[in-house]
């Protein structure tokens, strides 16, 4: 099936002659599909192989991801060997759907943007796979866990390698499914099962956005292939593009836990910690940012949608930071932080060509240091016998030295202390924000200060102060299989930013795909850097001031409204309940005409009827045939009325 790419590309040029066909995959690129096939093979073997693979399955899964990472690096070398404007490579696997004038090829595309995601996913993915060997060592379903992890990696790679929106959608749903399976992995916890369902349903709301956007794109442009759509983006009307942009934003908000679809991410922390690190920090949740940046050509044409992206980013940036500041559960606090950091990326993407590059840059550095933070938290939780409440931690630096030191590296990275990696990327975003809008720039600086606060709070409560451990906990350092990935990630937290910026030239690398506009600021850049650093240090100082003294083991109740709201995740459950869940159920009840005895009334009644004891219900039941017939007459009248109304004009 491989090799039909040329034919399709020839077709594509017939339809829209302006488009440069992608270079066909040859040489090292000719096995592009292998990148997805390797983890998919792992998932297939582990999930279908059953218990036979229990013993060697997890190692096989690790091997598949490591192999994919190695091939990813080979691809990077291959791309480096090509000139900057010739780095997009396409490969058509087969024609997936072909109806009427519509084609949806199973075609992959590797370019500068995809490759950085491929490397992030496979390399961080490999480290997390290895770490999981230790973390999940005693879990009876270890094999299944690794199968799901491999499935996730395959779907995520498909998402970033797809050359059209429809195939991207397949990957999009695939990562959603894998995420849902992994959140609910400890299914014996009802909270885990509920969290998985919540994540799936809320993601589906986002998915509506994506599917409507794809259809609108197809109706407008007659194609869903990225290059063709982007080449014609200027020809569509602005209102259409605005709608497409807003729908894509809805999709991104669902996947990346942005306001107003952010609620599921906190519950998603029910999953095993390596999952939180891989899916809910480093990779999947950033898919929304990828989608927006990838669709940059559309957003460039519609300032309204672009502004909406920026606004959503700013709101979530604060929302997440507040939640991160108030939660006592270490993972939930980190989840709030993830929301907030993705808010930064979305904000940057909402700046347009000024910010796309920096959104991706921050995404990469964040992927590394946040994976580091989560794995560090996992190591702590592992050592503390599953305890996640930071109020029961304290003084762990003495017993978990490696975890502590590596966590500190990521800590310095996320709050943006030079020369750690977060400094470079966050500073670039703040800089870009000031170029576009001073207010947004100030917001970004303030949020950096809050980041300093909540991260310091977390570090103090966990590693400093006096021990507040539960009686049965005997904290100990984790095994080498867990600490070595931590050390590697800590080195990444220190140097990724610099390496990408100075050695990897990330800005110039991505520019051919994302574009870049820069304008000088009216004041020296160094002032901005100093201001940011000062605000961050103020945040750190406040946290030290507040938590230097003993931390009470129970959370104090006499707190202000904002803290209360943040502890309750900004009341998102209540809001969802009022806005979505309750109306749906009431509507459902109204439709089936059941009174407030509740939904189960019918079925319990029916069961009673079947058992021969529900005399009252029997009458009710036989009454039904009559009322059904009446409803049919009503329906027939409706049919005639509709036909008559259509006739009227």
């Amino acid at each position, binding site marked *: 099936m491989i090799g039909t790419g040329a034919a399709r590309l020839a077709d594509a040029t017939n339809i829209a002659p302006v488009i440069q066909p992608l270079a066909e995959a040859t040489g090292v690129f000719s096995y592009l599909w292998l990148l997805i096939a390797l983890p998919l093979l792992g998932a297939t073997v582990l999930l279908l192989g059953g218990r036979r693979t229990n013993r060697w399955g997890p190692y096989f899964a690790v091997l598949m991801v490591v192999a994919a990472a190695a091939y990813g690096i080979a691809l990077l070398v291959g791309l480096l060997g090509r000139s900057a404007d010739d780095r997009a490579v396409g490969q058509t696997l087969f024609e997936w759907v072909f109806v009427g004038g519509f084609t949806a090829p199973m075609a992959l595309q590797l370019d500068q943007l995809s490759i950085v995601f491929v490397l992030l996913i496979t390399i961080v993915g490999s480290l997390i796979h290895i770490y999981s060997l230790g973390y999940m060592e005693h879990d009876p379903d270890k094999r299944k866990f690794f199968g799901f992890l491999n499935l996730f990696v395959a779907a995520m790679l498909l998402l970033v390698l797809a050359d059209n929106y429809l195939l991207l959608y397949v990957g999009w749903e695939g990562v959603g499914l894998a995420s*849902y399976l992994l959140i609910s992995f400890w299914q014996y916890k009802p909270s885990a*099962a509920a969290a998985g369902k919540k994540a799936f349903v809320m993601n589906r709301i986002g998915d*509506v956005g994506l599917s*409507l956007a794809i*259809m609108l794109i*197809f109706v407008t442009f007659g194609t869903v292939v990225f290059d063709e759509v982007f080449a014609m983006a200027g020809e569509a009307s602005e209102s259409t593009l605005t709608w497409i942009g807003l729908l894509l934003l809805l999709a991104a908000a669902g996947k990346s836990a942005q306001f107003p679809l952010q609620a599921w991410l906190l519950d998603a922390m029910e999953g095993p910690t390596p999952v939180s690190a891989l899916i809910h920090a480093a990779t999947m949740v950033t898919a929304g940012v990828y989608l927006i940046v990838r669709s940059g050509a559309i957003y460039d044409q519609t300032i309204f949608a672009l502004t909406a992206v920026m606004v959503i980013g700013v709101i979530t940036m604060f929302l997440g930071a507040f939640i991160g500041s108030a939660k006592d559960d270490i993972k939930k606090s980190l989840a709030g932080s993830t929301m907030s950091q993705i808010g930064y990326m979305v904000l940057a993407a909402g700046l347009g060509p000024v910010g796309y590059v920096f959104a991706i840059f921050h995404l990469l550095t964040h992927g590394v240091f946040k994976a580091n933070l989560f794995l560090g938290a996992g190591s702590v939780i592992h050592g503390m016998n599953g305890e996640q409440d930071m109020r029961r931690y304290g003084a762990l630096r003495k017993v978990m030295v490696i975890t502590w030191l590596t966590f500190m590296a990521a800590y310095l990275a996320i709050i943006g202390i030079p020369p750690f990696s977060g400094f470079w990327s966050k500073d670039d975003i703040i800089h870009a924000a000031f170029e576009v809008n001073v207010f947004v720039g100030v917001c970004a600086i303030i949020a950096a200060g809050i980041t300093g606060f909540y991260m310091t709070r977390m570090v103090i409560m966990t590693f400093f102060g006096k021990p507040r451990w539960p009686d049965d906990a005997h904290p100990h350092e984790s095994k080498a299989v867990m600490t070595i990935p931590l050390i590697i990630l800590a080195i990444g937290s220190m140097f990724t930013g610099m390496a990408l910026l100075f050695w990897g030239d990330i800005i110039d690398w991505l520019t051919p795909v994302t574009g870049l506009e820069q304008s000088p600021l009216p004041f020296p850049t160094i002032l901005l850097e100093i201001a940011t650093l000062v605000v961050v240090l103020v945040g750190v100082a406040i946290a030290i001031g507040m938590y230097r003294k003993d931390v009470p083991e129970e959370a104090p109740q006499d707190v202000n409204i904002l803290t209360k709201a943040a502890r309750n995740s900004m009341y998102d459950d209540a809001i969802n309940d009022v806005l979505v869940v309750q109306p749906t159920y009431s509507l459902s009840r109204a439709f089936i005409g059941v009174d407030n005895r509740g939904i189960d009334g019918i079925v319990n009644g029916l069961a009673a009827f079947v058992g021969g004891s529900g005399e009252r219900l029997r009458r009710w039941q036989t009454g039904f045939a009559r009322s059904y017939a009446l409803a049919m007459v009503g329906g*027939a009248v409706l049919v005639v009325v*509709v036909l008559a109304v259509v*006739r009227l004009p």
Partner: protein
Amino acid sequence: MNPDVMVAPEIDYLALLPMIIVGVAAVLGVIVETFVGRGARRPVQLVLVFGSLAGAFAALVWQSSTRSLEVEGALAIDGPGILLMGLVLIVAFVGAMLMAERQLDPAGDSFAPRASALPGSVDERELTKRGYLQTEVWPLFLFAVVGMMLFITSTNLLVMFVALEVMSLPLYLLAGMARRRRLLSQEAALKYFILGAFSSAFFLFGAALVYGFSGSVEFSAIADALAAKPGETALIVIGLAMLVVGLLFKVGAVPFHQWVPDVYQGSPAPVTAFMAAAVKVAAFGAMLRLLYVAFGGLRWDWEPLLWVVAGLTMIVGSIVAIAQTDIKRMIAYSSIAQAGFILIGVSTATAEGLWASIFYLVAYSFTTLGIFAVISMVRDSGGEATRIEQWSGLGRTNPVIATCFAIFMLALAGIPLTSGFIAKFVVFEAALAVDAVALVIVGVIASVIAAFFYVRIIVVMFFRDPIEGAPRVAVPSGFTTLALSISVAVTVILGILPQPVLDLIERAGVFLR
């Protein structure tokens, strides 16, 4: 033609061979019931059923290049007709496998040992103890299949009405023959019959009005009359409305859907499977032909009507399904919602819409067969265990069966790489091609609402602990196993490689006039 002389119609028997084979087998089945001893009846009937269905399918393939009007223009053997007949035959074949299963219920197959014995009577217990099986179900089943094939191909309102009855009457009976929960089953059958008769009356009334307008019951003549008399339309529009009501009832579209949950729940699971899959194929086939061939001239009238009905059907079906706690009722409401999606394809009045609807029917019918195959396997001492909470933990006790069911749920929800996704996609695409954007938005929203309860089943199966006295999955014979395997395979393959089937459908072309 001289009206006083009755001329025997010329009949191309070869073209009609598939129907003839099944029809003759059905008649033979009745004779078997009379003359063959009790012990030998079941094997003989099974040979007749599977042999005739396979033979009819072979004849259909052999004659598949036929494109002609037969029997004085009463039947059209054309591309879509042949395709849908083939689909009905395959669905019937798989459905018959489910009906032939007798290892799941310790007492025998899914049917009452004798339908006339009073539920709970000594008589019934005695018959059960002796292991009587009711083999009359087989001829009934074949008659229903003949009715469906006629229904799909008829190009004449009267033939269509007769086909409708030939299809429906055996189904009313089959619905009432469940071995377990017989009261519920009989009630369902009676309700189905009364309401079905009511809808037939609508259809017949409509046919009369249309005849009054056009002076003919033939589709082509109706189309000609519409072209010739564009002004006077009150009569024909009301006639059309009545005909459409009759057909919308059969597909279970809102507001003619109330019978669906009761009947799906009450009927034996194999019958429900056959009914849910094959009746939808036949009724949509007939609806497509009626609207596209006879009433193409009125498309500006019925298109908006179908938009309204399709929208209502998708939304009501999806929302009400959320509140269900019985799995059969939930699937019933889901099938109502699915009918709404197919109606989107019908409402386009284009060739693409026709093909999309047919593809949807293919995808949907196999998924449905698989679903009921699984439902018939999950049992407790009282028969099928259909309360959703009883399915808790199925994923742990029976991972293979639960995974199959999860695949079907994902397909109904329209998740990519399953047949359901492609089906929804082609239907939406056809609708967008005629600018029915609002309808597509309603459809997407409905599919999101629907995802909620499909996922809920998966959650219950995989992420809940089994309850006390949880049902066990009975070990089926080869019949059900094969049927389930076919359903899963089609559901997955159509999601990954739909192109050959899409091509096949496109090659079938459009209806013959």
